[in-house]
């Protein structure tokens, strides 16, 4: 494996247009391994097609962000819960 990722703070940019809170400070539960951790710790891969964040422990896909012509697609398929400090 040749890692080519950056840390979860890279999500702040693409997700700041979608959420009023700083999503990198939110905690998510990984569907793959159950780990609960702040998204800033995720491994973020910037594909040409979009952003993919993976669990720092088990490498499962946590979320995907795709910017399209008229908006953004957010898929939280790998996060079973998101805790936002208010």
């Amino acid at each position, binding site marked *: *494996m*040749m*890692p*080519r*990722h950056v840390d979860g703070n890279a999500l702040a940019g693409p997700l700041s247009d979608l959420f009023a809170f700083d999503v990198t400070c939110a905690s998510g539960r990984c569907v793959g391994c159950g780990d609960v951790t702040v998204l800033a710790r995720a491994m973020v*891969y*910037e*594909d*040409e*097609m*979009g952003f*993919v964040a*993976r669990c720092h422990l088990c*490498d499962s*896909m946590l979320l*995907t962000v*795709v910017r*399209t*012509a*008229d908006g*953004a*697609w957010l*898929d939280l398929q790998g996060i079973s819960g998101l805790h936002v400090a208010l």
Partner: protein
Amino acid sequence: MGIISRGFSGRSREHNPDLPPGQYLAEDFPVLSAGPTPDIDTADWSFRVQTESGKQYTWSWDEMQALGLEEIHTDIHCVTRWSKLGTSWRGISLDKIFAGIETENAYVMAHSYGGYTTNVPLEDLLDGKAWIATEYDGEPLDPEHGGPARLLVPHLYFWKSAKWVNGLRMMETDDPGFWEQNGYHLYGDPWLEQRYW
């Protein structure tokens, strides 16, 4: 030689008839990917086609190469707007792979090492339109470009040419693959600019 000005060479890149709408010519070959690059030894590589009956057809690396490599010269068009014209590949025609396969299904989900998927109609994989590519520009396909083998379906946007491909699963309906679930077009014809839903 070399004195003729650019004006005499005819068309500007914007008017290049080989460029689909909204594309520009790329000099390099971007290699970003959605996960760690899988490191697959050809000795461990295998390729599987699974049909609706549950039957599985498998090929080892050597068995796949024994089907025969073809030279492929083609343009490729990425949905992120770069195109590369006149690329050279070698690969195994999917016509050879499907020659002995019985299926009534019209759709295919391509699967890759690393879990990536993409959907393609079967007819887009047949009649000399698609390959399992194992060489690029005269060299074995390197892992960053999807090696040891990637799907090559150059008449569709390049995300359909799944990197690190390891199998095809026949489908009754045109179910969306990984990027297609997340906003990208189900079919992806570059000449019709089918980028997003």
